[in-house]
């Protein structure tokens, strides 16, 4: 490994690439050449650092661990001169973030414990040596030289690790099933088809620490006796696909993949397969169909993949995050892992926070933390200090939980009891301005669209629910709609073939349970309490507040507003399309939604 006195980490996640991260790297390189510093300073690509919402680019300099933000390309020459030539921190570019020390970066928020995310932002994902320098592939060495496959399975079983894709099946048990299965060829598959809207933890692991997934898969393959593996990554993640391909190539060059790994006699190779945009492919049987070059339609289980999976051979499928936990479990031991967490859910879980919460983004916390701690302590509370209304957990098949559930301890069982799921760890936080009927309709629109159409309850049932919800939102709800919805939810849940259909009714079921008053207001009073559903609201100009500035009238896309200058304006409700532009523009808050 070449020695550099300084390392510069530049974030190349999709948002930063859009902001010109590669141009920044190029400019940095040019400037380093100009100053004769190329031998001393290394520029590395990493995943996200800093807050993506700020303007300009971010970079980090090590070993000082200084975080520069809001950079433009013009800042680079001066920065290079100050930081690397003169060796002093260019204070003027640390515009928002104060000087960050190493420990703070690795544990950035209170209550976080990082296992899966421990390397993210700390290493160059495209350089295997960086991973190795932080105990990478040590677990693989330990397994191949000191442990039998059975001991490996036992260790994972003892750790209590459960599938992080959402189902929560014990990983060790899954591995034992495939290990015991008869078959010429066994396959190890990584489910990187992270399709749940609002979940992006897997993307960040794939892009930021690809080798942890590869190492976990090799260890699993050794335990299961598999010689070939596939990482099935969704096509919506082009950077993840590229990073994984590079990482696999590097692992192969280091003798960590391929024949006779580390001289142990064990052989295993790995390939990346790309999806093509189908949510249902996250379901394991559909995923395997897609790898085989077919339509990604699920099939009934049993037979389970451990008996008849990919090409009818015994196969094991785990999620990205599950594999990524494995090396640390092997290195630090099952007991250490099991000491983290809560009841039957050991270890940590990543959550992707989105919606109306102040700190959006990825966090990793031990199981057992409460929703309140996640939203208020880690997430910083609700944006603009509005009132919390609901949080939707686990993606489109999860339920919406109201304020009364905020002290719920997060684990697989507690969420299931509350009528939601842990799923892939998506958390969509909603404030008081959200209409829960509209949200239920929205999720149904998604599942209805993504239903593969193979089984009837899911294909037709989700459509019926969507029709009813749309009608309710349009103010045409009927008194028996609520009963019909309940009936449909039950039928779809009980009779669908795969997890998509079984989970599809959850958003409707949970909103019916916790926010029934909103449904009733829509149906009986033709009123949308959150003032979201267009057919149930109207815009009016308040007489005393309107100054007649004409701003709204000039910007109305359908010319629905009339009035003389300096006179109170009027909105014609028959023309108004309720786009809300006037309300946003009015400098005097003179437009009211009724």
């Amino acid at each position, binding site marked *: 490994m070449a020695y550099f006195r300084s390392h510069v980490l530049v974030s190349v996640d999709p948002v930063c690439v859009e902001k010109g991260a590669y141009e920044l790297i190029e400019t940095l390189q040019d400037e380093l050449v100009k100053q004769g510093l190329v031998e001393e300073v290394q520029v590395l690509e990493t995943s996200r650092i800093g807050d993506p919402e700020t303007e300009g680019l971010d970079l980090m300099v090590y070993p000082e661990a200084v975080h520069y933000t809001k950079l433009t390309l013009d800042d680079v020459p001066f920065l290079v001169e100050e930081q690397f030539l003169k060796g002093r921190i260019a204070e003027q570019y640390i515009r928002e973030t104060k000087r960050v020390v190493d420990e703070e970066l690795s544990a950035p928020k209170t209550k976080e414990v990082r296992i899966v995310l421990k390397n993210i932002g700390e290493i160059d994902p495209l350089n295997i040596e960086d991973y190795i320098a932080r105990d990478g592939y040590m677990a693989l060495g330990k397994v191949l030289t000191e442990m039998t496959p059975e001991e490996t399975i036992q260790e994972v079983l003892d750790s209590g690790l459960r599938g992080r894709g959402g189902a929560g099946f014990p990983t060790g048990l899954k591995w034992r099933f495939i290990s015991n299965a008869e078959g010429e060829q066994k396959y190890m598959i990584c489910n990187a088809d992270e*399709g749940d809207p609002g979940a992006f933890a897997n*993307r960040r692991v794939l892009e930021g620490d690809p080798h942890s997934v590869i190492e976990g898969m090799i260890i699993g393959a050794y335990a299961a006796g598999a010689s070939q593996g596939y990482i099935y990554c969704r096509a919506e993640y082009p950077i993840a696909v590229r990073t994984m391909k590079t990482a696999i190539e590097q692992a192969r060059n280091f003798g960590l993949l391929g024949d006779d790994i580390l001289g142990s006699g064990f052989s295993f190779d790995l390939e990346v397969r790309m999806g093509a945009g189908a949510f249902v492919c996250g379901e394991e049987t559909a995923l395997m169909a897609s790898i085989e*070059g077919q339509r990604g339609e699920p099939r009934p289980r049993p037979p389970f993949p451990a008996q008849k999976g990919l090409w009818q051979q015994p196969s094991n499928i785990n999620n990205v995050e599950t594999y990524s936990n494995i090396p640390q479990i092997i290195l630090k031991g099952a007991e250490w892992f099991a000491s983290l967490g809560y009841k039957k859910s050991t270890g940590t879980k990543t959550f992707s926070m*989105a919606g109306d919460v102040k700190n959006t983004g990825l966090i990793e916390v031990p199981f057992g933390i409460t929703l309140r701690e996640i939203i208020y302590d880690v997430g910083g509370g609700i944006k603009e200090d509005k009132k919390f209304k609901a949080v939707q957990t686990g993606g489109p098949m999860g339920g919406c939980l109201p304020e009364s559930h905020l002290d719920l301890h997060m684990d697989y069982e507690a969420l299931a009891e509350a009528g939601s799921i842990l799923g892939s760890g998506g958390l969509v936080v909603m404030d008081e301005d959200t209409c829960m009927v509209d949200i239920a309709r929205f999720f149904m629109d998604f599942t209805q669209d993504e239903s593969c159409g193979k089984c009837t309850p899911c294909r037709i049932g989700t459509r019926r629910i969507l029709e009813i919800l749309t009608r309710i939102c349009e103010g045409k709800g009927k008194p028996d709609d609520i009963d019909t919805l309940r009936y449909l939810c039950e039928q779809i849940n009980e009779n669908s073939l795969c997890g998509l259909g079984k989970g599809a009714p959850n958003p409707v079921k949970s909103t019916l349970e916790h926010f029934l008053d909103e449904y009733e207001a829509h149906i009986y009073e033709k009123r949308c309490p959150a003032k979201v559903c267009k057919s149930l609201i109207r815009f009016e100009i308040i007489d005393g507040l309107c100054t007649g500035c004409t701003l709204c009238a000039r910007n109305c896309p359908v010319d629905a507003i009339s009035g003389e200058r300096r006179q109170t304006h009027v909105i014609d409700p028959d023309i108004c399309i309720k786009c809300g532009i006037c309300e946003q523009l009015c400098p005097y808050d003179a437009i009211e939604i009724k």
Partner: protein
Amino acid sequence: MATEVKEGQDIRNMVRTLVQNHGDEKAELIPILHEINRELGYISDEAIKELSKRMNLPSSHIYSVATFYRMLSTEPRGRHVIQFCESAPCHVAGGRLVWQKLQRELGLAKGETSQDDKWTLLTTSCLGLCGVGPVMVIDNDIYGNVTPEQVPGILKNYE
């Protein structure tokens, strides 16, 4: 997206080369369809016919696969493809207003291509960029934190 219109012999040659590079195993079908889609902007009948011959698969199978996946198209698309994220986090972050603006600005509804073949307006499933929603992608360019006011300016960047 599609840089130039290819036809007949060109398409057949392209398909042949792709099958040579990937091999003719059934598992290669989706990777090959991806590449055809990228080259032509869509998967034409001509391409399906040739692929059927080269891979020894029924055209019906290829067509059923090509129509199953959202990112593969069997219809020609415009020079620029706009994909707007319709997922909940973007929706909650104000995506609805951006989507309305986008449709109004282009005069297109979801799935439509403009008369002059310049634009195709699509929605996409979650791109995992939920921290910067609403998000849209034009060709390969990603736009985050999009507001309705920014839409006309963004569209102006494309010829």
